C-alpha cells in the first residue's frame, strides 16, 4: 500500500492512479517526498501479475502461519505440558537441601548410667583440585589430625576431587583447622558413638558400624528405635550459597533416636566382669560366662563373658570375640541339670527330700556304665543326699522312674531347647533331642546334663524358676524405651508360666541349699551371712578336634540363688576349661559367691537370720 504513492509503476494497474501522484511529483521536484528512483525502475512486483502476487501472498501466509503455529505449539508444550518440571528445575537450582542428622539414642543401665551415647564430630575431607599447596596443608594438618604427613600429602595430591583425611574429629579440632583457613579442606557431619564404660556391658550393648548402623547386641536389636529419623532443611540460596533471609526456608526437623534403658546394673556388671576376667586368667579357663537374674522379675541384672571386648574398639578386635557367648554359645551343663530331673521327680510325686534310695556306685545304661564321681558301694542316700553329693547313679534311678517323655516335658517347661526371647541377637535354642530318639545311654546322660546343651541364660532361667516358687519368667534385658519427647514405653512384660508347684520349688530350694555348705559339693559357693542354694556342675567338654569327649577337658558351672529362704538373685556361672581339671565346686562356685555377695550387698538385702537347716544326706541306720 505504501509503495503505490511512491512508485508510479508503468504497469497496467496504475492507470487510474497515475493522474493524482504525478502532478505532485512534478510540482514538488525539490520536496522531501521526491522519489530518488527514476520512474519505472522499481523491480519488485513490477513484472508480477495479480495471479503471481496472489500466489506469493498465499505462500507467504502459509509460511507465516506455520511458523506461528510452531511457535505457539512449542509455547503450549513448554508452558502447559512441561511447565511444572521446568518450574521445579528452576526452583531447584536456587534451593539447597541440607540433611539434618538425627542423634542416635542412648543406651543406659537401670540407674541411668550411660553404656552408649553419641556426640557430634566431623569428617575432614578435601578437594585436592582446590588445595593450593598440598605440602603446606599436610604439614599444618598432620599434628591436628594425628595422621602422618606423607599420607596426607599423598591424599592431597591425588587426581581426585574427594579424599577423606580423617574421621570422627572432635569439634575443637575442627575449629582449629577452620582457623587455618586452608582452601579445599571441608567438613562433614560424622557423629561418633561413645562407649564410656568400655568393655563393661560391651557384649550386651553391642556396637555400631562405620555407617552408624547397629551391628551387635542391643545396638542391633533396637537399631530402629535408636537411629531416629533424619530431617532435612531446604533453603533458597543466593550467589555464594548464602541463604536468602526472606526466601524459602522450610525444614523437617530430625527426630532423635529413642533412649533404651537396660535392666543391667553397671556396677554389678563391672564386678561380674572383673571376677570373670580373674577366673579367665587362671591359665586353664578359656571362656567363661555369668548371668545374674532378678528372681521376681526375670530381668537380667548382669550378663558377662570373658574374654570381653570394648565396643568402642570393635573394629580393631578379633571378630571371633565380638559375640555374646552368654546367649549364643551352648555347653553341656552337667550336674547343674540334675535340678530339672529332681524337680520332675518331686513334682510327679516320685520323690520327697527324705525319700531314701539305695544308690550303688555305678549303673548300666545301654552299652556303657555311668559311675559316680567317686567309687562307692551301695549307700542309702536320701534324695537330698543325691543332690548334695551330686550322685549320677541316684539321679538316673529317679529319672528312670520319671520316664523319658516326662523328663523331656519338664526340660522344655524349664526352657531348655527353646530361646528365652531375651532382646539380644544370635540367641541359641540349645540342643535337646526328642525323647523318642534317645538311646539307652542318652536317656541316662540327659538327666545328669550330658547330651543336652544350654546357654548360660537358659541355665540361669532354670534356677530362676525354682527360686520364684516354680513360676518361670523369661529373662529380659530391656526395661524401657524412652522416645525423644520423654514418653517412656515400658518393655512388654515377659510371659510367666508355672512349671512346678510352689511346694516342689520349696523342696528343691531346701535340697539345693544342702549343696552349699558342709557336706555338699560346693562349700565355696557360700556367701557369708546369707543362706545360699545352688548346684555345681562338671561336664565333659566335647573335644572339637575329634567330636568325642576324650581330651575335651571340662565345663565347670555353678548356678544358684540367695537368700535361700527369700530369693532375690539368681547367678549362673560356667567356665570352659579344655586343659584343666577341677570341678564346679572348686572353680565356678567362688565366682558365684563373689558375684552373689556383691549383688546382695549392693541391693541392701538383709539376711533373714534363720539358721541353715540340718540336712539328712544318708539314712542312718
Amino acid at each position, binding site marked *: 500500500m505504501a509503495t503505490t504513492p511512491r512508485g508510479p509503476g508503468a504497469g497496467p494497474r496504475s492507470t487510474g492512479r497515475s493522474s493524482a501522484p504525478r502532478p505532485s511529483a512534478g510540482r514538488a521536484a525539490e520536496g522531501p517526498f521526491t522519489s530518488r528512483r527514476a520512474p519505472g525502475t522499481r523491480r519488485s512486483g513490477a513484472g508480477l501479475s495479480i495471479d503471481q502476487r496472489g500466489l506469493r501472498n498465499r505462500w507467504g501466509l502459509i509460511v507465516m502461519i506455520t511458523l506461528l503455529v510452531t511457535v505457539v505449539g512449542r509455547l503450549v508444550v513448554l508452558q502447559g505440558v512441561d511447565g511444572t518440571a521446568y518450574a521445579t528445575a528452576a526452583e531447584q537450582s536456587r534451593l539447597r537441601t541440607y540433611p539434618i542428622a538425627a542423634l542416635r539414642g542412648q543406651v543406659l543401665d537401670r540407674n541411668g*548410667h550411660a553404656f552408649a551415647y553419641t556426640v557430634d564430630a566431623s569428617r575432614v575431607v578435601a578437594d585436592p583440585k582446590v588445595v593450593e599447596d598440598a605440602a603446606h596443608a599436610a604439614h599444618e594438618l598432620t599434628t591436628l589430625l594425628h595422621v602422618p604427613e606423607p599420607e596426607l600429602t599423598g591424599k592431597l595430591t591425588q587426581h581426585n576431587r574427594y579424599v577423606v583425611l580423617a574421621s570422627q574429629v572432635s569439634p575443637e579440632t575442627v575449629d582449629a583447622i577452620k582457623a587455618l583457613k586452608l582452601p579445599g579442606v571441608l567438613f562433614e557431619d560424622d557423629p561418633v558413638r561413645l562407649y564410656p564404660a568400655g568393655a563393661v556391658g560391651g557384649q550386651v550393648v553391642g556396637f555400631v558400624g562405620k555407617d552408624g548402623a547397629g551391628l551387635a547386641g542391643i545396638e542391633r536389636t533396637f537399631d530402629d528405635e535408636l537411629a531416629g529419623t533424619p530431617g532435612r532443611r531446604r533453603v533458597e540460596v543466593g550467589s555464594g550459597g548464602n541463604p536468602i533471609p526472606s526466601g524459602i526456608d522450610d525444614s523437617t526437623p530430625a527426630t532423635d533416636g529413642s533412649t533404651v534403658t537396660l535392666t543391667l546394673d*553397671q556396677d554389678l556388671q563391672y564386678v561380674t566382669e572383673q571376677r570373670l576376667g580373674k577366673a579367665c586368667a587362671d591359665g586353664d579357663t578359656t571362656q567363661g560366662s555369668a548371668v545374674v537374674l532378678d528372681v521376681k522379675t526375670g530381668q537380667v541384672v548382669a550378663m558377662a563373658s570373658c574374654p570381653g571386648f570394648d565396643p568402642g574398639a570393635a573394629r580393631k578386635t578379633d571378630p571371633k570375640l565380638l559375640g555374646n557367648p552368654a546367649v549364643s554359645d551352648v555347653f553341656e551343663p552337667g550336674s547343674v541339670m540334675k535340678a530339672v530331673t529332681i524337680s520332675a521327680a518331686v513334682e510327679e510325686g516320685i520323690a520327697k527330700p527324705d525319700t531314701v534310695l539305695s544308690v550303688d556306685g555305678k549303673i548300666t545304661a545301654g552299652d556303657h556304665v*555311668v559311675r559316680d564321681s567317686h567309687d562307692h558301694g551301695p549307700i542309702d542316700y536320701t534324695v537330698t543326699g543325691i543332690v548334695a553329693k551330686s550322685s549320677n547313679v541316684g539321679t538316673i534311678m529317679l529319672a528312670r522312674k520319671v520316664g523319658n517323655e516326662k523328663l523331656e516335658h519338664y526340660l522344655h517347661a524349664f526352657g531348655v531347647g527353646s530361646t528365652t526371647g531375651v532382646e539380644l541377637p544370635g540367641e541359641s535354642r540349645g540342643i535337646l533331642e526328642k525323647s523318642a530318639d534317645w538311646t539307652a545311654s542318652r536317656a541316662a546322660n540327659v538327666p545328669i546334663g550330658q547330651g543336652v546343651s544350654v546357654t548360660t541364660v537358659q541355665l540361669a532361667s532354670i534356677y530362676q524358676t525354682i527360686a520364684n516358687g516354680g513360676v518361670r519368667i523369661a529373662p529380659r534385658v530391656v526395661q524401657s524405651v524412652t522416645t525423644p519427647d520423654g514418653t517412656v514405653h515400658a518393655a512388654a512384660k515377659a510371659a510367666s508360666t508355672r512349671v512346678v508347684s510352689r511346694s516342689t520349688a520349696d523342696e528343691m530350694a531346701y535340697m539345693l541349699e544342702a549343696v552349699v555348705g558342709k557336706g555338699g*559339693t560346693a562349700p565355696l559357693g557360700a556367701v557369708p551371712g546369707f543362706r545360699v542354694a545352688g548346684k555345681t556342675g562338671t*561336664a*565333659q567338654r566335647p573335644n572339637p578336634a575329634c*567330636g568325642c569327649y576324650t581330651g575335651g577337658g571340662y565345663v565347670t558351672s555353678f548356678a544358684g540363688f540367695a537368700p535361700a529362704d527369700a530369693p532375690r538373685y539368681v547367678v549362673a556361672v560356667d567356665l570352659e576349661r579344655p586343659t584343666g581339671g577341677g570341678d564346679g565346686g572348686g572353680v565356678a562356685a567362688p565366682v558365684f559367691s563373689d558375684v552373689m555377695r556383691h549383688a546382695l550387698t549392693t541391693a541392701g538385702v538383709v539376711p533373714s537370720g534363720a539358721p541353715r537347716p540340718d540336712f539328712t544326706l544318708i539314712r542312718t541306720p
Partner: protein
Amino acid sequence: MTRATARTSPARTTSARTTSARTTSTPPRGTATAPRGTGTAPRTAARPPRAVPSRPELRLVPDATPRPRGRVRSGLGSRRAPFVLLVVALLVGTTLGLLILNTAIAVDSLKATQLRAANAERDQLVQRLQQQVVSGGTPEQVASAAVAAGLVPAGPAAFLVIAADGSSTLRGTPEPAKAPPPPVTPSSTGQSPGAQSPAARPATPSPAAPSPATGQAPATGAAGEG
C-alpha cells in the same frame, strides 16, 4: 476511484472554511459555544454580539481558541498536583519502607546467625562437660579412683536389725576389710563357708567326701555328642 474523490474533497473543505470565516454573522455562536463546556467561555460568548462589527473578523477565531486551552491545562495542573505529590510520596515512602524492612530483616538474620553460632558453641561446651561427667562416673573410673584414694573392697557385711520393741540383733559376722590394697580380694571371702552353722552335722559319710574333688564327671566312655 474512491481515492480520487477523497483527494478532491479537501479542496472543498478549505474553501468552506474561508467562506465561514468571512461570513461571521452567525458562526461566532458556533465557536463561542464550543468552549462553553470548559466553563470560561460564557463571558467571551456574551461579548461578541456587541463587539462584532468593530473588530477584525479573522483575529477573533485564533484568539479565542488558544485561550481556553491554556486555562484548562493550568486549571487541571493545579488540581492534580496534590494527587501527583501523594503518589510520589507514596512511592518514596514505600521504597524507603521496603529498604528499612529489608535492612531490618538482614540485620535480624545476621543476629540470628550469630546467635545460632553462639548456641552451637554452648552446645559443644555442654557436650564436652557432659562427656567428662559420664566418663568420670563409669565403674572403672570410680574403682580406680577408689584404689587411688586407698580404699579397699569391703568384706562380708553384718546387719544390725532393730526390732519394733527397740531391741537389736546382729545378723552376720562383720569382718574388717584387709589392709593391703589389692584391687579385688574376692577369693579370700569364700573361705568361711559354714561359719554361721557350726551346728552338729549328721553323720558325715566316707572320709573321701570332703575332698575338693567332688566333681561328678560321668565316667561314660564316649557319649558321642559333638
